């Protein structure tokens, strides 16, 4: 059986717009972090604008935003990671909310979450010893407040969220966050979860990462992980996440392009078939929704291809 029923990829999707936004966001966050690194006083306004646009973009439902996950392997620097995590956090939050204020706050916190590290790294020129790691949450809050100018009361939620993200990521060193009986802010836990996913798929040290499903499984198994947030993450990117390279029972290879509408059909996402049954690259990609049609009439996923074996540009299959 061959995956012949096809939908030519790229229809009605604005690749240029999504990548323009991605580049715009990275440039903005890069400038922000650069100011922080030079001990200048950065302005919050560009971060707010980017956060608002990312929040608007995720309302469009464009599958290309999910495909940004595939860019994590190529761009592991702090500004890119901040943007990738903001997009992912927004996609997850969009599963339950369209509250613009809450969404933009969430994105702002995700974009600024590494501010403290950047500030402290200027004195060490790179990785931080434990002594300085312990200071990161407080410094993150300091940067968020400073960036907000003379009216720090306007920055309370993003500052608190960014602070808690920095703390939670260092809880092995700092101990649990005890600020409230309610536990950490939901936004902070969400950002920590998506950052953990990204760091497993594409570790910032440059070493090989896990396949997206393995990374997701690892995040879900992490002690203290919130099962509801994990389910929302699955709803947003799929149990076999966007960007996963899979082998079909036909022998063809495909890249997961979008999660199934129904998360219980976890192994029936929308895919782009990249090879034929002999492993030859397809001249034209074929898009296929494995959840459409009765079981048995379409190919099924046979296995996940490990990232080390799928040495091709996965992003190219999705941003056509």
């Amino acid at each position, binding site marked *: 059986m061959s995956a012949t029923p096809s939908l030519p990829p790229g229809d009605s999707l604005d690749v240029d717009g999504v990548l323009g936004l991605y580049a715009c966001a990275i440039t903005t966050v890069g400038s922000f972090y650069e100011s922080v690194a030079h001990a200048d006083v950065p302005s919050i306004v560009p971060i707010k604008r980017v956060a608002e646009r990312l929040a608007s973009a995720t309302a469009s439902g464009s599958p290309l935003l999910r495909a940004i996950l595939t860019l994590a392997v190529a761009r592991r620097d702090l500004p890119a990671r901040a943007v990738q995590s903001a997009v992912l956090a927004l996609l997850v939050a969009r*599963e339950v909310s369209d509250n613009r204020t809450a969404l*933009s706050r969430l994105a702002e916190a995700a974009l600024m979450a590494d501010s403290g590290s950047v500030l402290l790294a200027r004195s060490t020129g790179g990785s931080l010893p434990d002594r300085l790691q312990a200071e990161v949450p407080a410094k993150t809050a300091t940067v968020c407040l400073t960036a907000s100018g003379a009216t720090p009361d306007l920055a309370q939620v993003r500052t608190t969220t960014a602070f808690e993200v920095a703390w939670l990521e260092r809880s092995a060193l700092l101990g649990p966050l005890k600020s409230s009986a309610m536990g950490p802010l939901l936004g902070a836990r969400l950002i920590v979860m998506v950052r953990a996913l990204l760091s497993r798929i594409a570790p910032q040290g440059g070493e090989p990462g896990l396949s997206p499903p393995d990374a997701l499984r690892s995040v879900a198994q992490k002690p203290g992980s919130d099962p509801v947030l994990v389910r929302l993450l699955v709803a947003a990117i799929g149990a076999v996440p966007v960007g996963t390279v899979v082998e079909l029972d036909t022998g063809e290879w495909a890249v997961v392009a979008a999660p199934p509408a129904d998360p219980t059909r976890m192994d029936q996402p929308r895919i782009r078939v990249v090879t034929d049954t002999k492993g030859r690259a397809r001249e034209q990609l074929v898009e296929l929704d494995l959840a459409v049609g009765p079981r048995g009439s379409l190919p099924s996923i046979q296995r996940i291809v490990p990232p080390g*074996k799928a040495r091709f540009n996965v992003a190219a299959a999705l941003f056509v």
Partner: protein
Amino acid sequence: MKGSRDVVESPGKARIGSVLGGRWQLVGLLGSGLVSHVYEAVDETGGRVVACLLRDELVADSELREGFVAAGREAAQVGHADSVRVLGHGLTDDGYPFVVSELLEGETFAKLVQRRRGRLYPAEALRLVRDALDVVAAAHANGMVHGDLTPDRLFITDRGTIKVLGFGIAALRRRAAELLEVDTVADAESYRAPEQQRGGTAVAQSDLFALGAVLYTLLTGSDGADPGARGGPRSLVTFAPTAPPSLLKLVERALAPTPDERFPDARAMRAAVDQALMLPELLNLRSLQDAPARATPAPRSDVSREPPLSHRNTLPAPPDSEQGAPFSAALPRPSAPGNGSGRHAAVRVAERAALRAGWRGGLADTMPAIDLNVLADVDPASAQRPARARGELDIDGLRELFARLERALLSKIAHGAEHAKTAREVRALCEHTDELLASTRTALYWNVNEKGFTTAGKSVWQPEGELARVPARLFSDGVRLLALLPGLERSELGRLVDILAYDPDTAASQEDDLVTLLWQAALPHVMHHAVGPFVDQEARARFEQEKRETLALVRFDTSFQLEDCWQQARDDTSPAQWRESLLLVLGQRRNEDGQTFVGGRAALRVDPAEREATAARLASEERVGTARFEAVLRAADSNPGKDGNSS
């Protein structure tokens, strides 16, 4: 539409209660068509589906028996997410073929036109046909032609998805009509291409003809363009002589008498529909007949003379625009002498630029912001033209609008939004705005500068005293264009007044800039554009470089490596039990005692209560985060690590 002879009703009800394929139980007869009886059925999980059974009178015909199931199979191969999902097919115990598909909730285009008495917004009609074209394009890509598209076979679901019904059934209808001796094409005649009318086979362009005729129906409320009519199809120009030429041209091309003269494929037609959707004159237009008059009514011969978009005058990207593309928007053709549409070119370009930047589009607000301030003096000559004709800007009317706005703002500042005087002033403002919007028949746009608002190069508002801070604040926060659109509601205008009157020095708010306030308010009939984050050339150059690198990254072709990877991966790995291992972790739930168990696939779903609780929690974080802020402040002040954790 010509009448058709009713088919003989067959005893379809007798089958209610029976089970098809061991899975689907028929629970009711929805209706009977030329070819089949249509039943509502339920599957083993109680899910509602539709089952079609070949009519009793036709089952003896082997061509129809085989063709019926083949049509079901074909419909499953359309290959588009929005095509009708075929869930199964087979034979009943007594040999009747059946096809089971998803149950659609919604209405056909025909019902929609009937319910709305033929009055669809042109943009709405275009969007419906655009979505139908997507499905048809997918089918064509798989070598499938529908051949029988009509407003009855195009369906809009309650969720707004367009479904194309009846793929593969055109030939069956013809055969059934022969056997039943009825006129199969009568109800679809207006939508059938000339080559089909002559007895020829339907080709892909026949479907494009049908969709052109459907668009005609949606735009005019009347039946299709009736290709069989003497003298060829009726042109849309006879119905709406002032309609935009490119829209007339689109419909005319779709309805061309021969396939070669039509669009080469569905994607090309979709692109033309997309282009028509960008026409600012269609925005908020209730009917094509309301389109503002152009210099001369466009006779059909004019339509074909319209220069292609790329040949028209274009405005080069301004040196300080962040995104060149939106500024490449084509200018409207130069106004002919005596042309009534003398609106300032800058405003019209602004409309197009705003549209191209994604406003109201699928990716609204995702493009870097554009600075429209530079457009203020694009065409000084046209600014001198007296604004008198219908559709032109009424400068005096605008000044009156701002006089009323001032009164509303001052009342809001002095008495608050709830005060009766403020409500009265907002009402007066709203009434005048409604009048202006009705008389201009388009949106009202203003460029914003630090001192006031301008339109067509003329100052329409330059407040003094206390209100001087309003444009100054808007400008310093980055707003360069503000627009009010037809359909503006009083509550929106009231909210806009609140935002304009906002003073961060005195107001108790979580926000300090007007762009964010406008964005958060998300007023559907108030549009604004703000400058983006790149304020200097260096930052802009970095953005351009970043974008180039990102594009290069995703376009880097490594497909030549695929075969090697495929071979190597095949040699050394056996398929893993990945489903089970994933489910083991992701499908975990907790019972009431807090014990973990694996809930299977169903556990992957977030139940509504969880969604609601999570949404409420996220929304409440503004308050919770603020409460915790004091603790964070202490941490930031005192430091560092050890006692930074507040308790």
